[in-house]
Every structure is written in structure tokens, then in C-alpha cells.
């Protein structure tokens, strides 16, 4: 009698593995799904080819004037010829190196913070946050130490957008944290003040706040105190965003179990030490996604300064599209603007995801 031998397994049906299997499972699993796939393909066919034609294949890329745009598609010449204005606004051309230098310093100064092995990171970070704003102010505004003054009325373009966003973030984060702590304080008067502040700023649109900065602040302040338009806008942006930061941070504070507060107190830490050493590090880590979302919102909100006549990135593009020499270029202008804003915001959201993964210690509260 011969020993029974099993035949080798048959391979899985070709319709359930490989590319074919994937297509069946993910695109054609039912009639409804197949219809959806067709609908999706139809949408793609409707959007993608014309878009590519317009933006790339039929577009004009080289030239200097409107007359160089002879083809059907987009006229990127417009963006090229106005590029410097979109970046720097009316900043004097011969002084634009100062803006570039400030940007390079910002990146170079922050770079060590992203190196894992760097010692004394916290101290360096605090030092950077204290020193860099002064350097940036000196470079951008000047007026002392041998640099010519460039008044903020000449600032503009992407540079102004980034300045407002950076000041907004740098100001709103600490103020927001203080407000969040105040809102959870045991002292009723402090709590009432913080809640009123937060709810007021969260209840009104930023536009009305900016309007207020241009029409009401001059009434509120003494005549001789003539605040710069940009400064007023920045103060308003900081207050406005601080209220949102405060609510995000409050969420984090509430998520920290009471045991942590009690443990900190049992260690003999006072209020500030227990907050700075125990509670806030944990709470802030929890709310990184929310904070970054707030900062992304802030970056997008900077575009509203158009209302009070500042020439930020969006406004310089809007102005350029009304230039008689370049009429009919609004689509190109706004698409370019959208691309730039998108890169910044999408970059921030991806970085926050990365940070969240990196700081995840595995224990969820």
C-alpha cells in the first residue's frame, strides 16, 4: 500500500489576489460600488485633463509682458514678473537682502532644535525665542545699529503674512496658556475675567475685531499715542487667537487626571512649579493637534488684514490682478496664492502629525 500524499495547494483564484483581486475588492465589490467607481472616474476625467492642459501643457511660462501669453492656458508670466512684489510687497528692492537674511537666520537658528542629539535644547530654544525677535525687528524694521529704517507701511507680500503669523503664534501661545490656567483657577475674580475675555473674542469674527482696531483703538488711546496700523492688527490677532489657544489648552488641562495635580502638590511643588514641571508638559503634549490646527487657522486668518488695507500676500496678488497691464489674470493669481497658502498649511498639519507620533509615549489618559 502506498502512503497517501496530498496534492500541493492550488493557488488562490486569480480574481482574488494581485492587482485584479485588489480592483475587485476595492473598486467593484458590488454594483453600487462599480457605479461609484465609474462616477469617480468620470469626475477625474472631467477635472484632471482640462486642469493639466490649462496649468501645464497649454500654459505660457516665459516672457515679460502680457503679449507673451499667446497660448490657451495659464499665463504664468504674470506670476514671474510680479514675483518679487508678491514676496516683499513695497520693501525697497535694494534692501530686500535684509528680509532674506532674516528668513535664513530664522531657519538656521531653529534648525538645531530639530537635531535629536543636540544638548541643552530647552535652554537654546528659550534663548532663540528671546534673541531672534530682536534680530528680526532690527533687520526688517531697522532704524538703529546702522540699518536704514523701513517703515511697516512698506512691508508686504508673503513676508508680511509670515511676520503677522509668527508674531501671532509667538504671542497667542503664552497668552492663551495663561488664560487657560486662569479659567481653571480657584480664584473667582481671575476666572470671571478670563472667561469673559475668552468668550468675547471667540464670539466675534476677526473682521470686526480688525475693524475695531482701525476705527475704535484710536478713540480708546490718547491722541499722542499713535500706534502703527500693523502693530494694531498684530495685537488684535494675538488677542483673538489667544482665546482659541486657551480653549484648546483647557481641553488638555482637563484631560490630566486629578492624581497628577495631587502628586505634584504632595511633592511640595507650589502652583507655578507644579504647572510648569508636571501639568503643562503633559497637557500641551495632548493638545498638539489642536494647537497646530489653531495655528493653521491663524495663518489663514492673516489674509483678513486686507480689510484694514495692509498689503499681505493675498492683497498684493489681488492688487496685481487689477493692474491694467495684466487684466484677466485673476485665475492665475488666485491659483498661485492658493498653492502657496496650501503648502504652508498642509506642511504644518503634516508636521503636527509627525510630532504627535514622536511624542506619543503610549499611555493615553
Amino acid at each position, binding site marked *: 500500500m502506498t502512503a497517501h500524499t496530498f496534492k500541493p495547494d492550488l493557488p488562490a483564484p486569480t480574481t482574488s489576489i494581485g492587482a485584479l483581486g485588489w480592483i475587485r475588492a*476595492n473598486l467593484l465589490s458590488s454594483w453600487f460600488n462599480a457605479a461609484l467607481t465609474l462616477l469617480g472616474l468620470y469626475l477625474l476625467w472631467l477635472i484632471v485633463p482640462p486642469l493639466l492642459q490649462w496649468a501645464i501643457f497649454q500654459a505660457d511660462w516665459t516672457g515679460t509682458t502680457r503679449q507673451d501669453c499667446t497660448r490657451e492656458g495659464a499665463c504664468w508670466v504674470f506670476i514671474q514678473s510680479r514675483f518679487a512684489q508678491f514676496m516683499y510687497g513695497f520693501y525697497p528692492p535694494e534692501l530686500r537682502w535684509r528680509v532674506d537674511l532674516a528668513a535664513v537666520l530664522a531657519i538656521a537658528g531653529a534648525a538645531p532644535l530639530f537635531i535629536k542629539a543636540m544638548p541643552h535644547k530647552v535652554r537654546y530654544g528659550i534663548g532663540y525665542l528671546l534673541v531672534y525677535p530682536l534680530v528680526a525687528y532690527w533687520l526688517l524694521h531697522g532704524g538703529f545699529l546702522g540699518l536704514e529704517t523701513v517703515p511697516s507701511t512698506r512691508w508686504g507680500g508673503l513676508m508680511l503674512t509670515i511676520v503677522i503669523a509668527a508674531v501671532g503664534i509667538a504671542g497667542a501661545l503664552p497668552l492663551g496658556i495663561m488664560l487657560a490656567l486662569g479659567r481653571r483657577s480657584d480664584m473667582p475674580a481671575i476666572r470671571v*475675567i478670563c472667561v469673559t475675555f475668552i468668550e468675547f473674542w471667540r464670539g466675534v469674527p476677526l473682521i470686526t475685531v480688525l*475693524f475695531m482696531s482701525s476705527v475704535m483703538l484710536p*478713540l480708546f488711546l490718547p491722541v499722542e499715542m499713535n500706534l502703527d496700523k500693523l502693530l494694531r492688527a498684530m495685537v488684535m490677532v494675538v488677542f483673538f487667537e489667544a482665546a482659541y489657544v486657551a480653549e484648546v489648552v483647557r481641553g488638555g488641562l482637563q484631560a490630566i487626571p486629578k492624581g497628577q495635580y495631587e502628586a505634584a502638590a504632595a511633592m511640595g511643588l507650589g502652583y507655578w512649579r507644579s504647572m510648569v514641571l508636571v501639568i503643562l508638559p503633559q497637557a500641551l503634549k495632548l493638545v498638539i493637534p489642536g494647537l497646530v490646527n489653531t495655528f493653521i487657522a491663524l495663518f489663514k486668518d492673516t489674509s483678513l488684514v486686507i*480689510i484694514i488695507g495692509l498689503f499681505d500676500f493675498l492683497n498684493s496678488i489681488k492688487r496685481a490682478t487689477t493692474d491694467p497691464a495684466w487684466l484677466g489674470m485673476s485665475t492665475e493669481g488666485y491659483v498661485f496664492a492658493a498653492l502657496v497658502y496650501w503648502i504652508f498649511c498642509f506642511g504644518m498639519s503634516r508636521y503636527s502629525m509627525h510630532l504627535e507620533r514622536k511624542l506619543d509615549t503610549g499611555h493615553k489618559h
Partner: protein
Amino acid sequence: MRTTLDATPARGSLLSDPRARAWLFQIIAVAAVVGIGWYLFHNTQTNLANRGITSGFGFLDNAAGFGISQHLIDYSESDSYGRVFWIGLLNTLLVSVLGIVLATILGFILGVARLSSNWLIRQLATIYIETFRNIPPLLQIFFFYFAVLAPLPGPRDSLSLADMFFVNNRGLQMPAPLAAPGMWPFLVAIAVAVLAVVIFAVWAKGLRHATGKRLPVFWVSLAILLVVPGLTVMIVGAPFDWEIPELRRFNIRGGWVVIPELVSIVLALSIYTAAFIGETVRAGIQSVSHGQTEAASSLGLSGGQTLRLVIIPQALRVIIPPLTSQYLNLAKNSSLAAAIGYPDMVSLFAGTVLNQTGQAIETMAITMSVYLAISISISLLMNWYNKRIALIER
């Protein structure tokens, strides 16, 4: 021998007593707030006196004297600033309501599409969301207004649909309903039908709870809603005459006009907010654990029933709070309308009226209170709804 433990610690300075310190901090804080408030008030008084502005709300009765491109209630240039306020408020509410409705519909479709088992649909929804939520809403408004709607042909070369709807650079013109003799009976018939449907639904629910018998509520309701008004129209005649826009030499006259500003704001805000609502809806549906779906199918519920009776009620609890804040954002973002001159609260009141009257404090206070009131009403409404659908725990 007994030793006594002294319970009262040695008394240090008053400053190291937490309660005394708390009092001190609060007094300082209140004093600072009052001080700043007084300082601002004082400056304002002096500045107003210097500029010769009398404060007060008397200006609201003065004639406005400017035209408004869109008013939902009758308005002429001789009407008062008070009426301008109502027009601005209604225009703001119009944008907010239209935007909220459209954004909710689109957002729920996106949220479900993000979880579709169909790879292509999932990717398309992701691309949509990642694209539109990372572009400032103001930029989107500008894009629709300046790049899409402005280059449309003038009234003479309007794109027309069946010679009733016209699209041109002045906006969208469409037939307007005018009251006809049959209007009131028609409206009454609708009210009666709705009332009948509600009563029937309540009765059917009671019957189901009492006996377990199911009635085809949906189909019966639909029939009532169609038949009662339909019969009324057949008996008393058409409820509306339609005023159809017609092409004149330079312009299109008659009918309803939807101005391009309104179209671009509503489109941009709903497209922008829908991206956020989509993410909210996705997170809500994902928060319902898979065990719920399995439990539902082991009870013999069909796919649709599982979604309707098990998944959605639980997902809504997670969705409602962030959805509320999206609605609030949309209502506040409707003020972006000012940037393209749509006559909303901000551009009419904080813009034109303020410029004409110089009453900065009053107009800004009114404008801000309106937004605060809108924000508070939306949160109250949504909180009420949230409470109604919240999990009832023992």
C-alpha cells in the same frame, strides 16, 4: 504624661498664607481691569469731545441716503439707519443659513465618502478635504468672485436655461413667484398636511409601541404631503404667478436676482466648511466601535437599518459638539462678505454707516453684539439638541 501636638503651624508672613495671597491676586487683577477700563473710557471721552462726536443711538433714526444692492425687506434711500441694520442682519443670516445647509449636506457626503469601501471615492474625498481646508476662505471667496463670476458675459449675452434662468455677470436671474388668488388656500393646505403627518406619525409610533404593528409611515406621509396641496391647487387654481425675467435692451428685467456676491460667498463658505464637517463626520462614524455593527447584524438588522438605528444615533453624539463649532465658524466667516462688498452686517453697518455717521463706538458695539448673539443662539440651539440625543445613563 500627655504631649500635645500643636496643630496650628507657626504663623509666617501674611503673604505665605494661600488664602491671603488669593485675595491679594484677585484684588490686583480686578484693580488692573478696572484701571484699564477707566483709562480707555477716559481717553474715549476726551477724544470724542475733541472730535465733536456726540455719543448715543439717536443716529439710528436718521435717513441713510445710500442704496443697497440686496435687501430682503423693502428699502429705499430715505429709510433710516435702523432699517439698514435689519437689512444687514437679514443678509448675514441669509448667508449663514444657506451656507450651513449646503455645507452640512456636502460635509456628510464627504464624511461618508471618506469611509467608503471604494478606494477611488475614498481618495477623491481625501483630496477634496486636504485641498479646501488648507486654503483661506477669503481667498476662495475672491476666486469665485473675481476669477469665476466676474468674467461671465454681460446681461445681453447671458447664458440662459429654458429662457427662464439667466446667468451673467450681474448674478443669477430666475422666475419670481407672485401671489395669486390660490396662494392662501395653498399655504393653508400645506400647513394642514404637515399637521396631519405629525399627528399620524405620533399615532403610528404609539400603535407600534403598544402592539408592535408597523405602518408604512414614510409612504403615507409622502402621500398626504403630495395629495392635499395638489388637490387644493386643482380646485382653486395655481398658487403663484411666475414673473419670468425677460431680456431688455441693456438689462434683464423682472424676476428674482441672486447677486454674484451672494453666490460666491455661499459657494466658498460651504465648500470650505464642508471639508471640516467631512472630517468631523468621519471621526464620529469611526468612533462607533465595530462591535456595534456586528451586534446589529447578529440581531438581524439590514445594512440600512444598522446605519439608521445603530450607527448614526451613536455617531451623532460625537459629531454634534464639533459640528456646532463649525456652524459658529461659518456664521462668523460670513463677515468675510465685507471684503467683496456683499451688503452684510459688517460691510453695511461697520462699514458704510460708520463712515457716514462717524459713530464708531455705537456701530461697532451693535455689530459685535449681533455676532455674539448669533454665536450664543447657535450654541444654545445645538446644546439643546445635543442634550436631547445624548446617552441617557442610569
